[in-house]
């Protein structure tokens, strides 16, 4: 009769980092059932609970003994398994070894009149308690941490030192060993609310004991507590809290017994730009800022404490003093920074490295200014725009050496914008300084106007071209300068209609580097960068639903300008969608013609050798040659496709009625010349053979 018990397993640790904990929780959910299954231990539901100081798995209905198992396997036939002398062959011994059975235990049995060897494998029932130590030790070993810590004198590794282990099957302690610890039935409570060891009588009690010791044992439960506490404060104040997912995860995994509290700071600090205050609160202190109904930052903020709720006043007061000190710093920096106009900081950019070989931020600024001049010329912008762009480019990085940005890095650009306004720069220049880092992440918006867009383009192109020039293109998962994101940013700005040639811009940027004395193979680097942009573009077009063959068909004509590629791919896909049969047909015809094509013959066919059907095609091709050519010159790709589509009827008629490979070489060659000319017309538009 099968009996079952609950298994409770707790790894007690020093505080595990928030994100590593989140990740480990997910791992445990699969590792525990996997390990039990692999050991053949029948079990019920597995539940995982984690806090910064413990990882818990509770497994219901764990069989106390594994099932006895008898498995019978049929092996090779006797003919193969037994040689003339009556000995087992290699095939037989191999089969026995594979099944884990001794050769002597193999049997011969008759099945449908044929003799086979059989192996019978019996796995006796084993007490699960004996298997569990190895199973659970395996779980500990398999947990994967981004960084592992050693401690004391043990050679064991874990995210942070492990200080206790509870392992109980029912009431029985499972002797799991790890580091210099042996599992027992003692767990540890919350550091201050229930310090010390707490005995766990049986596996079913572990969660109760832990909860009674002021530990909210799972991420979900702590999140609920925190969200409820935040909602209560929102209801009481009428304010709205901002809970960014990253900070929320950290806060959830920075406490075992969260209490949500509200603090305030002196309203005087609200003169400091909101972004710095929010950065200080979210990034440094893990507080949640509160906003009023108009969406304006208030001087109230939310603290999630791990302390004793009885001393909340104490804890709030302490936190308020920390915020005051931080905001004092912020205000001090902000006031200091504004004592000089923003342009006074530009010179000091020579203290900040952009990239070792590519020089300092000052050098980058100089290149970005030159680059914007080229973009302005290519885009043919107005003089006042050009003036703003040059000014914004010159000031774009100046805030990197201001105190506020050195201290609160996430506000780069934003501070520059505040300082620009304070120094009397116009609104468009100020906004461009803030926005030239855009788009900062996937789905982020692009800079609002041409000024910001031009600076953003110049800055990103400078980064991409420079790093490619020194051979530091992104590889695999390594993209430390986020060049892929920069490239997507450039393309988004172009898609939004910024009217420049990317190819020219890339060449321009490389020329600026070249003139500044950087040595590189400009042709090869240029091609690499264009290919890199086209790679990003392909991904974007595929996301839009373009097929790989349409993209390749367009690219095969050698077109390099991403916006032109996108336009053609979209037009081609649109045409194929509207007239699928027609394009299928054209593709097949083109492929036939292309296969027969013999470029060495040229395209000058003789009219007098043509049959009427051939003459029709010749006339159509000749006319298409000029209409398609005109459409392509005018950049009207859709029109070019429409003109090609007109060739369908004469082509179909040609292939239906004409035998190209005529016995008469003169006729044959003439037909091939006609086909050559037809292929030529198609080829300027796209490689239709890829669309068949």
């Amino acid at each position: 009769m099968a009996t079952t018990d609950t298994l409770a397993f707790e790894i007690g640790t020093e505080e595990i980092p928030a994100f590593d904990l989140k990740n480990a929780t997910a791992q445990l959910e699969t590792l525990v059932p996997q390990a039990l299954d692999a050991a053949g231990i029948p079990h019920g539901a597995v539940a995982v609970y984690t806090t910064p100081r413990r990882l818990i798995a509770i497994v219901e209905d764990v069989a106390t003994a594994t099932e006895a198992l008898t498995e019978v396997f049929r092996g090779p036939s006797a003919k193969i398994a037994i040689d003339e002398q009556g000995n087992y062959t290699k095939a037989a011994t191999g089969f026995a070894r594979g099944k884990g059975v001794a050769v002597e235990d193999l049997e011969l049995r008759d099945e449908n009149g044929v003799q086979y060897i059989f192996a019978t494998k019996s796995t006796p029932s084993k007490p699960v308690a004996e298997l569990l130590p190895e199973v659970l030790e395996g779980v500990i070993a398999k947990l994967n941490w981004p960084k592992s810590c050693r401690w004391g004198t043990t050679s064991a590794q874990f995210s942070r030192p492990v200080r206790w282990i509870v392992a109980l099957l029912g009431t029985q302690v499972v002797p799991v060993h790890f580091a210099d610890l042996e599992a027992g039935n003692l767990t540890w409570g919350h550091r201050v609310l229930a310090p010390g060891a707490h005995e766990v009588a049986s596996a079913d009690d572990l969660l109760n004991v832990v909860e009674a010791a002021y530990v909210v044992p799972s991420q979900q439960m702590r999140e609920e507590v925190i969200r409820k506490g935040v909602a209560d404060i929102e209801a009481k104040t009428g304010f709205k809290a901002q809970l960014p997912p990253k900070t929320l995860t950290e806060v959830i995994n920075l406490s075992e017994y969260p209490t949500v509290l509200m603090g305030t700071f002196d309203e005087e600090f609200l003169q400091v730009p909101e972004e710095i205050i929010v950065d200080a609160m979210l990034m440094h202190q893990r507080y949640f800022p509160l906003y009023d109904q108009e969406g304006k930052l208030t001087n109230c903020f939310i603290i999630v404490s791990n302390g004793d709720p009885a001393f909340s006043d104490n804890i709030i007061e302490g936190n308020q003093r920390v915020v005051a000190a931080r905001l004092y710093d912020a205000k001090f920096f902000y006031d200091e920074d504004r004592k000089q106009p923003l342009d006074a900081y530009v010179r000091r950019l020579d203290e900040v490295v952009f990239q070792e070989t590519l020089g300092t931020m000052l050098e980058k600024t100089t290149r970005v200014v030159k680059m914007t001049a080229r973009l302005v010329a290519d885009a043919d912008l107005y003089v006042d725009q050009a003036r703003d762009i040059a000014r914004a480019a010159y000031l774009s990085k100046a805030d990197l050496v201001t105190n506020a940005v050195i201290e609160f890095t996430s506000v780069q650009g934003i501070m520059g914008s505040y300082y620009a306004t304070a120094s009397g720069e116009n609104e468009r220049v100020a906004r461009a300084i803030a926005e030239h880092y855009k788009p900062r992440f996937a789905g982020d918006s692009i800079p609002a106007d041409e000024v910001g867009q031009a600076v953003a383009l110049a800055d990103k192109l400078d980064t991409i071209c420079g790093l490619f020039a020194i051979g530091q293109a992104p590889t695999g998962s390594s993209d430390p300068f986020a060049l892929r994101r920069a490239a997507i940013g450039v393309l988004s700005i172009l898609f939004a209609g910024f009217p420049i040639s990317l190819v020219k811009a890339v060449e321009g940027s490389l020329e600026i580097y070249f003139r500044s004395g950087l040595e590189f193979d400009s042709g090869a680097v240029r091609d690499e960068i264009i290919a890199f942009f086209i790679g990003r573009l392909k991904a974007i077009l595929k996301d839009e639903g373009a097929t790989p063959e349409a993209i390749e068909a367009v690219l095969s004509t050698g077109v390099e300008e991403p916006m032109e590629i996108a336009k053609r791919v979209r037009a081609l896909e649109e045409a194929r969608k509207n007239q699928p049969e027609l394009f299928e047909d054209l593709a097949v015809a083109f492929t036939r013609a292309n296969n027969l094509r013999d470029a060495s013959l040229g395209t000058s066919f003789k009219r007098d050798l043509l049959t009427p059907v051939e003459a029709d095609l010749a006339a159509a091709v000749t006319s298409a040659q000029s209409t398609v050519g005109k459409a392509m010159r005018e950049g009207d790709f859709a029109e070019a496709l429409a003109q090609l589509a007109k060739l369908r009827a004469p082509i179909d008629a040609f292939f239906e009625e004409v035998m190209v490979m005529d016995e008469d070489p003169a006729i044959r060659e003439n037909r091939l010349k006609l086909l050559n000319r037809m292929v030529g017309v198609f080829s300027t538009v796209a490689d239709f053979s890829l669309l068949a």
Partner: protein
Amino acid sequence: MNEQACPEGQNLPPTFQQVIMNLQKYWADAGCVILQPYDNEVGAGTNAPATTLRALGPDTWRTAYVQGCRRPTDGRYGENPNRLQFYYQFQVLIKPSPNNIQEMYLGSLRAIGIDVDKHDVRFVEDDWESPTLGAWGLGWEVWIDGMEVTQFTYFQQVGGFECSPIPVEIAYGLERLTMFVQGVDSVYDIVWSRGADGVTFTYGDVYLENEKEYSAYNFEVADTDFLFQEFTDRERDCKKILAAGLPLPAYDAVLKCCHAFNLLDARGVISATERMAYILRVRTLAKACCASYMLHVVGMGVEDPGVQFAKELEEEAAAAAAALEKAEEEQAAVEDAAAAANSNSCGSTSCSASSCEGCPSAQINSL
């Protein structure tokens, strides 16, 4: 203790020096060697040899000490209430790390008058890495009610060597901690001492002038030519000392290099590109000191960095000697040429004139 020390028996919080003395007492009772501050400029308590070098090797080691730390670029002329170019850390290093070290740490907070049960004490992930030392560790910054007061680190590697056993380092920011304990908002308002007669000295009384003068010195006055030269000289000295197999004095030279570099940095004369090169030079020396310590003090069979340095120095000396010889040869050649030119002069051995024309002696001779 502090109750006794205050005049009317009021329950006053501990003074700065009481915080220090209580920590020393607490960690002394825990078996630590209480060292006095290291007498060389360091940027952090970690950089004192009692931590950096003693973290290496298998021997048990327990120490606690106050360390004055110099960070020239953090100077604010005494105008910022939270930032100093010279401040104090209380440093604890225990190898191997004890199992109850977190509890011991919380006990030390109680010992300085922080009732941890009434506050929110957190261990917030903060891993430590020192590229200049080839060292890294895992641990936390400890927060009390949101204020970072301590760095708590399990060293994993120092000087490029795996630590075994693992030391744990606890570095308290003494000013922050005392500000918290005393409930003051400016570092300069910290009560440093309070006599039985009620006379008190504040941190400002003791250090405000120091902050003002050193901020001016660090940012405006420090002689950069001297410091560049010092860096180079100390670097050379370090190599020489390592060639002699003496890691402890060699490490002092590294600390001197670091301080010179930090001052140059504060003076704003180290360009961004040079900066990396200087850091690499310091790293080479620091790692070499650790290797030398492993070899000569711990007794591990690692490659002696002194051999390479000795070779470098020899080559340098040989090159210098060769250059000198060459210069002498050139000198001799010049003299020979001059002598040859002189051969058509009067021939007098003491005569160095290139011709006798206009020479008074020649005129005399010709007479």
